[in-house]
């Protein structure tokens, strides 16, 4: 499915969804405290090769990203080193508060096996139809390229488009006269 697409698979209308991430609700299980999720997501940090998201007790990572509005997810970019970068990545749309124990309870919305090209920055195009109405995304990194103890992710970028929804936080109360 995620077969060789040209590098221009970031099509028009697909924007970097960085602005729509709800930073207050970000969660990441099994991350190392000195190498946290923001190193992979935040603007600037994710471009820095010295700053990675690293796993802690073992090689798996469970990342939960809520959005401030409903989005459609088109593709993702996951970069990392050739050995310790992630390999199998499972994506779950709209599942809250997953744990490592229930990742196998239901099938993922999509699975990506990252190749070295992907790790260098080539986007993985996803099954768009599965990601039409995404409020939150859970990324389960199951293993890494060389099956080492620690998985290191340098950057995670999400591309897609928005669906017109009201941002509840932006609603202001009408003043009574």
């Amino acid at each position: 499915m995620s077969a060789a697409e040209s590098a221009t698979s970031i099509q028009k209308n697909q924007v970097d969804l960085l602005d729509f991430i709800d930073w207050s609700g970000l969660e990441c299980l099994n991350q190392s405290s000195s190498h946290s999720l923001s190193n992979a997501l935040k603007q600037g940090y994710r471009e820095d090769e010295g700053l990675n998201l690293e796993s802690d007790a073992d090689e798996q990572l469970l990342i939960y990203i809520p959005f401030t509005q409903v989005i459609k997810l088109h593709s993702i970019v996951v970069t990392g080193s050739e050995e310790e970068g992630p390999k199998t990545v499972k994506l779950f749309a709209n599942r809250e508060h997953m744990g490592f124990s229930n990742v196998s309870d239901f099938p993922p919305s999509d699975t990506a096996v990252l190749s070295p090209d992907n790790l260098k920055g080539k986007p993985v195009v996803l099954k768009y139809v599965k990601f039409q109405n995404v409020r939150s995304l859970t990324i389960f990194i199951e293993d890494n390229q060389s099956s080492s103890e620690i998985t290191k992710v340098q950057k995670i970028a999400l591309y897609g488009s928005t669906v017109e929804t009201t941002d509840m936080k932006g609603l202001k109360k009408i003043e009574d006269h």
Partner: protein
Amino acid sequence: MICIDNSEWMRNGDYAPSRFQAQADAVNLICGAKTQSNPENTVGVLTMAGKGVRVLVTPTSDLGKILACMHGLEIGGEMNLAAGIQVAQLALKHRQNKKQQQRIIVFAGSPVTHDKKVLEMIGKKLKKNSVALDIVNFGEDDEGKKEKLEALLTAVNNNDTSHIVHVPAGPNALSDVLISTPIFTGDGEGGSGFAASAAAVAAVSMEEERARQEAAAKKAAEEASEQDVTMTERSSEGPSGADNKKNEIPDDDNTLLQQALAMSVDEPASTQDLQDTEISDAAAEDPELALALQLSVQDSTKDSSTEADMSKLLADQSFVSSILASLPGVDPNDPSVKEVLASMQNQSESQQKQDEDQAPEKKEGK
């Protein structure tokens, strides 16, 4: 989630009145503290021995329910630590409020039969799922138990969110020893609940004494006469520093100042009472500190030498207010500070009357 050891080993009386009773008291105290410190906290209890691991109550904020389930617990069987922790983890997973931090408190009173490897794997799994673990090591102390539990702690510990406490048998009750540990105070919560508990205040002033000793030891090289002033100053700063850690009310300077004052004022008063004990204790650690303590005690005594107990506090007040004046950012004429100082004197009626007017005003203001 609290894991209780109700195995046969709990019949032993080396902790008064029995290991089991001491454990139950400690559990009751912890439940109270947790539910008081944050209304959104929930606590659950399970037993690890008996016929098998059994959850007595799932995480709830209803303290009555928790305490009720502690009644009628039977002792027997052998503790299964691994199963206990795993069931606790499962119970936490199914908590209603997923935003809550997960924590397991284990009372390990009997020998640990599992391998170190097994415990380490359990610890890793807990860390992976972001569950913190507090271990209370008491009761039986067979070979390897301490190392196994320490290994478990290292496996699970993430940024010092997990703790272990070894409580040896002795005159001190299990609960008293636990009060001063991070298990009780828990990552910065639990401050407001303590203000009410006298036992907690005693433990806190013990800690303040330690903080003061540290600070005083630093200044021990300097002139003795200056040392009094600096020491008391330091002690007010010290407690407020320590309180800061413990209380989640750093915004309210007045509260901190109140508690710091309480410590400083209480200390001169109590030091006079327990003069001998404290000085001999301190002397054991630091002869210079003993000298400093003596000097400060003498100072306070000198001030209040001719007056009754009630006026002792008044004298302390003038002493304290002069200290206050030297503390940065404190205006002794601030009505709230005055109120605090006055509230220290229970017996001073005239002050009380004056401040009773101010106090309700202030309370409303808050």
